């Protein structure tokens, strides 16, 4: 890295052609705003997700389940920290950032906020809803784990290379979280008269997670696409998730 006058290519051109940015000093103010917002949304979702899942550890029926739930709780914090470190390089105060919000805060179970943001943080709407008991935690984890995997897969091509690389490390662990959830769900279904409760939980989380994909305006999407920050429209991502979920649910005869 160095000062350079060897290049005159406008940054927007470079990005539109698939160029990568590698440090906060490369970016334009507009890009800075977008990328920081995307990072904040990821961090807040992971922090809120971890905080919400922590209580589930004690509801796990056996030690294996509790280990799995602890691991998910821990790794989501690790993921948040990884990206928070990158946010810090843009000037965020990382210590205060973590403590500025009560990440355990939740809305009442029966509220419906659609795909709108709520409150003073950038977590995805789905992390505003409370989890109720072990079965609910496992179902939420399966459905959301798959959604996060779809979103992260999309973001591997993001033009801010340090973030793309962080996501590349995070994605396999998130996929594993969804798999752990699926293993848990199989066990729950085999354990007795649980099918109805599982179905109720699926019915609760499925539309809420679907809403978390959002429906960004085409103008905004095109702007982000030009900056190399988006690749696939939200609707297509949601469709990919729906397909994945349908396959899993039908294997478990839950559809």
């Amino acid at each position, binding site marked *: 890295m160095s000062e*350079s*006058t060897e290049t005159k290519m406008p940054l927007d051109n470079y990005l539109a052609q698939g*160029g990568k940015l*590698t440090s906060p000093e490369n970016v*334009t103010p507009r890009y800075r*705003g977008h990328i920081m917002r995307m990072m904040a949304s990821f961090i807040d979702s992971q922090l809120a997700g971890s905080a919400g899942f922590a209580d589930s550890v004690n509801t796990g029926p056996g030690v294996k389940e509790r280990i799995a739930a602890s691991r998910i709780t821990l790794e989501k914090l690790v993921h948040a920290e990884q990206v928070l470190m990158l946010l810090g390089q843009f*000037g965020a105060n990382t210590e205060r950032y973590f403590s500025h919000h009560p990440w355990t805060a939740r809305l009442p179970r029966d509220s419906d906020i659609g795909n709108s943001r709520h409150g*003073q943080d*950038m977590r995805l709407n789905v992390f505003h809803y409370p989890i109720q008991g072990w079965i609910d935690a496992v179902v939420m984890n399966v459905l959301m784990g798959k959604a996060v995997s779809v979103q992260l897969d999309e973001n591997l091509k993001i033009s801010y290379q340090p973030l793309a690389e962080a996501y590349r490390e995070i994605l396999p662990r998130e996929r594993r979280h969804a798999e752990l959830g699926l293993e848990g769900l199989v066990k729950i279904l085999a354990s007795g008269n649980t099918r109805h409760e599982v179905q109720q939980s699926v019915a609760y989380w499925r539309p809420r997670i679907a809403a978390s994909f959002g429906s960004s305006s085409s103008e905004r999407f095109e702007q982000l696409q030009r900056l190399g920050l988006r690749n696939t429209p939200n609707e297509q991502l949601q469709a990919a998730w729906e397909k994945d979920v349908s396959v899993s649910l039908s294997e478990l005869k839950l559809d």
Partner: protein
Amino acid sequence: MARFLSLHVSDVRRETRDAVVVTLTPQVGDEEAFDFIQGQYLTFRRNFDGEELRRSYSICAGRDEGALRVGIKRVDGGCFSTWANEDLKIGETIDAMPPMGSFHTPVDPHIARNYLFFAVGSGITPVLSIVKTLLSAEPNATLTLVYGNRSSNSIMFREELDDLKNVYMGRLSVVHILGSEAQDIDLFSGRIDAEKCRLLFKSWIDISSVDQAFICGPEAMMLTVAQSLRDHGLIDEQIKFELFASSQSGRASRKVVSKTNEGANAICTATITIDGTTQQIDMAKRGETVLDAALAANMDAPYACKAGVCSTCRAMVLEGEVEMEKNHSLEDYEVNRGYVLTCQCYPLSDKVVVSYDQ
């Protein structure tokens, strides 16, 4: 949050006519903070005529060399690089943040990988750090460097690269491409462009055997080389980039503060620019932040925490006065330049001009 530590300048060596290599020693107790990974960079800060300037330069030392060194090439009009090339002396101290950057891959001494590097000009600095580290830490690795320069006397680290070739016989090959010098073989003259890549991959470099590629240079060259690599079968994960910070601004001008009288008017006319579009909004002086006023007017202003800690909503006040209630993220030099956190800002003057594009 940026944390600067003092480094002692223990050596300044002239590398080419317009480039120096600066060796730095951390203060006692800071050694761990400066334990770098090959390919990372340091961000320095220094005051020029009362105004703070920050510049990042890549580390050019190998990881196991036990030294912290950066290469600084002088660019015309570049305040910091000119100072480093002309005035920086042994014995001085300079402030730098701990190393940052992800222009590296994990080192594995047990496997035999083929690496391909493309560097132009001072883009060699992080590449040299990686090359040295890999030669020493991955005994089975082979490395090829394609290195573009204007002329032979502007080649940074030419001797050092020659020495490395000799010490690690048969493991490092360097292809020099010189822009303004005719050479015996046409392939080694001109620019590193798509055609050059095609010819190199045809006759000199077995691209199918390359495990990992690194590119460091200006935008156009990075795009061209990356595309050529993809066209020749490499996937994104196999290509690492480090972009020259060509968009680093020069000195920012100080904010213009118009001294309007503090009347009892409760309304302020805010002129807000985002993404080249300017809108004028009448907003209450109390109870509504500049960010909220912009959002209420359907402007797509950036923000995240709304608590003054993340700095996503940073903007510059070009005219008028505002009061920032909390600031946990902007540094003094940013505030001095006129930056504010719009989520924490209330107008004091009857008119403010704020830009998110600065």
